[in-house]
């Protein structure tokens, strides 16, 4: 009886849909959510305080974020097996940032970030296969094994950058090109709380504001620059205000809808020719700074566990969808199984693909005109 009540009561009901052997009852097609209100700097109005999530979007965001999560955990595994070497900065915990941003911009927009880049490499269109194979240094990697963790590129994605802060002027330059070419595109330039004190970032703020570049500067504040907490590195931890004369928005970076609405607002702002905007995404990384950092000498295990249990971005999205009848537990489980397989296949490829041939050594020094 309850089953039929659900069917008739909900206005935005899907009809019964057959999924394999199971029947999914009354999955709602969309729901209005209220993301956390964003603190604003030099803005009269900010991002929309309601977000509409369709079932399709919800499943897509879930799938993407869960893929990022599993991919990073696989990279952790491969690193401990010494199949991945060198630097490996993992993104697990921060998935809502990359997903929310991608959901709010167009594929034709541009994005550049620092070295914690695997998540963005994925959201910008590179397959898990090509990412893992790049981490293991094989010829099938997105940079043919020549770049590694911090140097992966895709269309309208400029890496992956190893020098802290250098990516920010680069992003402002991409934005200049957008303005110059009059293509109505924007550039998202990301940096961390550790990078936020870099002089070149303030140089970029100045020129972007002067020339009204369509650049969205985003500080992914995960509370730590390596082992240095924000309180110990920054005289002002209001990163969204550090643009001074540039308007800023503080965003809950664990809520994918909050991020999405904020970036939509920011992108509209830039496309309207109003100049740059600064966003601060409050987020958290479960891993240490890199694989060589256990991540517990400068923060407590309790803190990590608390974030995991109370603010995990994927759990939050899943619970939202489940409690609003937008998906079933079985459905989510099925997606998890599919993702697991994708990751396993990708890892298999990354392990078995051969290394680049030696005659690649001196290639790609110069582009031939």
């Amino acid at each position: 009886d309850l089953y039929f009540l659900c069917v008739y009561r909900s206005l935005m009901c899907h009809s019964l849909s057959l999924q394999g052997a199971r029947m999914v009852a009354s999955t709602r097609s969309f729901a209005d959510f209220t993301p956390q209100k964003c603190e604003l700097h030099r803005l009269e109005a900010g991002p929309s305080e309601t977000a509409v999530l369709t079932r399709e979007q919800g499943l897509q965001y879930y799938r993407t974020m869960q893929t990022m999560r599993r991919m990073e955990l696989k990279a952790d595994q491969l690193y401990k097996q010494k199949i991945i070497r060198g630097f490996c900065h993992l993104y697990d915990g921060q998935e809502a940032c990359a997903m929310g941003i991608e959901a709010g911009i167009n594929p034709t927009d541009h994005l550049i970030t620092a070295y914690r880049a695997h998540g963005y490499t994925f959201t910008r269109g590179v397959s898990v296969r090509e990412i893992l194979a790049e981490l293991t240094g094989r010829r099938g990697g997105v940079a043919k094994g020549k770049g590694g963790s911090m140097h992966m590129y895709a269309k309208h994605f400029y890496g992956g950058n190893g020098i802290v802060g250098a990516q920010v002027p680069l992003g402002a330059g991409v934005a200049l090109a957008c303005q110059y070419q009059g293509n109505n595109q924007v550039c998202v330039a990301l940096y961390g709380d550790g990078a936020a004190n870099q002089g070149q970032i303030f140089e970029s703020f100045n020129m972007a504001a002067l020339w009204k570049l369509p650049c969205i500067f985003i500080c992914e504040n995960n509370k730590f620059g390596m082992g240095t907490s924000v309180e110990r590195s920054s005289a002002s931890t209001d990163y969204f205000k550090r643009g001074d004369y540039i308007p800023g928005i503080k965003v809950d970076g664990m809520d994918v809808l909050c991020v999405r609405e904020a970036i939509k607002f920011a992108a509209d702002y830039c496309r309207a020719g109003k100049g740059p905007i600064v966003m601060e995404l409050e987020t958290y990384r479960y891993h240490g700074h890199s694989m060589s950092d256990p991540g517990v000498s400068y923060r407590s295990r309790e803190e990590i566990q608390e974030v995991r249990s109370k603010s995990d971005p994927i759990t939050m999205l899943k619970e939202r969808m489940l409690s609003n009848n937008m998906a079933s537990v079985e459905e989510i489980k099925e997606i998890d199984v599919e993702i697991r397989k994708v990751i396993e296949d990708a890892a298999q490829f990354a392990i078995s693909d051969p290394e680049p041939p030696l005659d690649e050594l001196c290639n790609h020094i110069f582009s031939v005109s």
Partner: protein
Amino acid sequence: SHFLSCLVEFSKTSPAAVQVNVRDALNQAMDEELERDERVFLLGEEVAQYDGAYKVSRGLWKKYGDKRIIDTPITEMGFAGIAVGAAFAGLRPICEFMTWNFSMQAIDQVINSAAKTYYMSAGAQPVPIVFRGPNGSSAGVAAQHSQCFAAWYGHCPGLKVVSPWNSEDARGLLKAAIRDNNPVVFLENELMYGVPFDLSEEVMHKDFVLPIGKAKVERQGTHITLVSHSRCVGFCLDAAAVLAKEGVECEVVNLRTIRPLDVETIEASVMKTGHLVTVEGGWPQYGVGAEICARIMEGPAFNYLDAPAVRVTGVDIPMPYAKILEDHSVPQIKDIIFTVKKVLNM
């Protein structure tokens, strides 16, 4: 190209020469390339409304406006990074450093963002950018404004490094640099800006380019090879004229490009003359001359040397201010003559 060789045929009989100084050669090169390709733009301090700190970009802002000729704040690291980012996204920036000394503020962007990206991306991301500005010693500008960066940038794979001497070099190499899809470090010389040279009709053609990576034998000789770049090429030619009176015929090689180094031209010359002197304005240690000597040692020309190769360089000190000291800090014609005679055991 075939087209240019046709021009050469026509101009062989009566080459119409026009006098153009290095500054104007650079100016015309930029003007023509700005006109040819709308993706090309110039940014840097004072390049627009001031007409350029050294007037190299005179008239360009008036002609092309704010969009294409951009005055930047005094923030090298920021604007060099912006220039590289613009190159990533499909434009063809010319990034001026008021002098190459200030490039040290931005050197990370030149090396790590520009030079290495094509390789790191395995060819996915080319960086078609030119960094240009005056390099090396000037007159009375003292230690922080007189350094030569040929060796520093010449050290790095992924960069092309060009060092023109005369107006033909400046014109042809700058046009080539702007058309090149790679990051090019273009080292000018302030003291050469005002020096006029005759340019033929062929050189004045709007598609005249010189190949990057090819040295030029400015003067044929049989007794000794002088290899140099930038302003010192002129000193070598002057020294050669003096030495000719004593029966010593110097072959003067104008490197034109620091990286890639045209070793073949140097080797061919050394194999002919059996003697080598390198001349540069920069410091001796780990410098351009040091590289040339090492390469000659490692190659076929070594067996043709009748004497060890010797370098003439700037003195290994920060540039002093007082004129007498400054004059003695850089290679002079008499230093070159002295060294040639020493190598030839005269």
